[in-house]
Structures are given as structure tokens and as C-alpha cells.
């Protein structure tokens, strides 16, 4: 048996994790009124917390969430803009390919260094911001996933 009184940690362990207690703690508790009283204080605190009023939302959470989901799915449904733009782009490209196929062939005769520079330059100019945007949005998504 421990001759000095138990410390706070041992008293809390006795009060809430008796299964993990060392034998000397249980033996001491069985014989020491002082430590028993300290354990009783903790049990009283635990009981008091249990009896505290539980907080509730002061709004209808079911309604709020369903409303939020409805709004987000509606805004998704209505967002036809990107698809229309892609369709328009494909349409224009197909039409110009059909009408200007002869001129296009002439464009790719690369004996004009200015034309090569122009085409490659434009390609790089377009791909850098697109690439950067992809990396940034990928990182953002990873971050969001982290919090899910």
C-alpha cells in the first residue's frame, strides 16, 4: 500500500478508468478516506456535467440543410454556360476547318520562321496560365479533402 496520498492523476484514473488502475491505487483507496473524498469530488463533477442542459440549435437544421442542398443542386443544374461555350468552340473549329482547309495547309509550310514563332508562342502563352490554374485548383481540392 502507498503510504503517501494519491496524486490527482491517480485519483482521476481511479474515478474514471478503474480497469487501468494499479493495484496499489485500489488498495490505498480502500483504506484512505481523504483520497476517497477527492475521488468523490471528481465523480460529482462528472455527474454535474451529465446533468448540464444540452445545447440545441435555435433553428430548424433539417430544413436549413435540405434548403442548402436544393439551392446547390439547382445552381449546378442551371450552369450550362461552360458546356455551351465548349460546344460553340467545337462548332466554330469544325466549320473553319471545313471552309478554310486549303488555307490551313498553307499555314503549316514552316519556311516562314515568323509563323513558327507565332504559333509556338501562342501555344505557350495559353498553356502556362491553364497549367498553373490546374495545379492551384488541384492543391485547393487536396486541402478541402483534408478537412473532410
Amino acid at each position, binding site marked *: 500500500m502507498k503510504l503517501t496520498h494519491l496524486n*490527482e*492523476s491517480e485519483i*482521476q484514473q481511479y474515478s*474514471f*478508468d478503474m480497469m487501468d488502475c494499479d493495484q496499489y491505487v485500489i488498495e490505498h483507496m480502500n483504506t484512505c478516506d*481523504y483520497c476517497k*473524498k*477527492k475521488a*468523490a*469530488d*471528481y465523480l*460529482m*463533477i*462528472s*455527474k*454535474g*456535467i*451529465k*446533468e*448540464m*442542459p*444540452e*445545447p*440545441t*440549435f435555435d*433553428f430548424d*437544421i*433539417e430544413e*436549413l*440543410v*435540405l434548403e*442548402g*442542398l436544393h439551392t*446547390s443542386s439547382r445552381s449546378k443544374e442551371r450552369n450550362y454556360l461552360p458546356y455551351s461555350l465548349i460546344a460553340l468552340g467545337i462548332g466554330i473549329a469544325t466549320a473553319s476547318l471545313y471552309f478554310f482547309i486549303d488555307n490551313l495547309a498553307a499555314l503549316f509550310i514552316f519556311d516562314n520562321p515568323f509563323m513558327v514563332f507565332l504559333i509556338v508562342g501562342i501555344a505557350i502563352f495559353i498553356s502556362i496560365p491553364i497549367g498553373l490554374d490546374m495545379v492551384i485548383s488541384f492543391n485547393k481540392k487536396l486541402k478541402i479533402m483534408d*478537412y*473532410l
Partner: protein
Amino acid sequence: MNLNGATDQDQVERILQGETKAFSALIGNTKGLVSQIVHRMIGNVEDRKDIAQEIYIKVFHNLSSFRFHSKLSTWIGQIAYRTCLNYLEKKKLVLYSMDRPEDSEELITGKAIALSVDNLEEWLQKKQLSQILDLAVEKLPPLYRTIIILFHQEELTYNEIQEITDLPSGTLKNYLYRARKKLKADLLAQYKKEDL
């Protein structure tokens, strides 16, 4: 698989099939836990509404990835906790540190406890204990407040709290120990004040 596995699975399937009622029922079953976490972590009353909505929208959008490794309610608790944590971190609010921990140290280990321990239980019995504790719990930092409530009021197991908060077992037990010690010190301080 947990004991609630079958019912959780059934509920998730119905929600994924588009049954709105099933999702409403899930909110109804878990809003107690979510409300506890949101109220204990978020002090700002106006932000609680947005956060609560955000939590359940996340739940809805991620339900298809739930793998039934834990109870569904624990998983929702985890989303609630992380959403609140994210909010606190964004606002740079203090999550862990106790105000002047030396106060509680002195009260618990010093003379004060020896002087008042005999009468604390008796005093608490006379007082509206839950009201005093409510105030004392409010004074704890958000993280301590939350785990104390999850353990003592929601009566979750260590494992469940660990799953929700992602705290290692030793850290969780240590935080619980410190939070209880602080609560006891607060009660002693108030008792002393009234006793004078």
C-alpha cells in the same frame, strides 16, 4: 463491423438512392452530437448556423465514400469537429491553452485543496451543480470543452472521441485530466470566494 453497421448501411443506401426522408432522419439522429460539437467549439452564435449547414452538406456529398469502419454518427462527429477546427484555425482562435494554468495548479496541489476538500462535495450538493459547472465548462478552451462534454455528457468512449478528434490516446487522456483538474480548481475557487 460495429453494432450499428446494419442500420447505418441501410440508412446510407436509402440516402444515396435519393430518399430525402432518410437524410432528414439522419440529421435528426445526429444533430444532438453535432450541436454539442458546434456549440462547444464555436463561440460566435451567428457563425454556428452556417457551420452546421456546411457540416451536413459535407456529410451528404461525402456519404458515398463512407466505408463503415466506424459508426455513422462518429464519422459525422468527425466531419463536424474538423469543420469547426478549420473555422477556428481560419479565425486564428486559441484552441488549447488554458488561461493561467498556474492558478489551477496552485489550487489543486497547494493548501487550498487541503482546506476545502472536506466540504466541497457538501457545498456542491447544496448548489445547482450543473449551473456552476456550465459556467466553468464555458471557461475552458474549445478543445478541452469539447472532449470533456463528449466524454462526460455524451458518454462516448475513448475510441470514439479519438476517431472524432484524431487525438492520440495518451494526448486525449492527458487533456481530459487537465480539463477536469481545471474544472475542479474553478469550483474550489468559487467555493472559497463564497466561503469568505
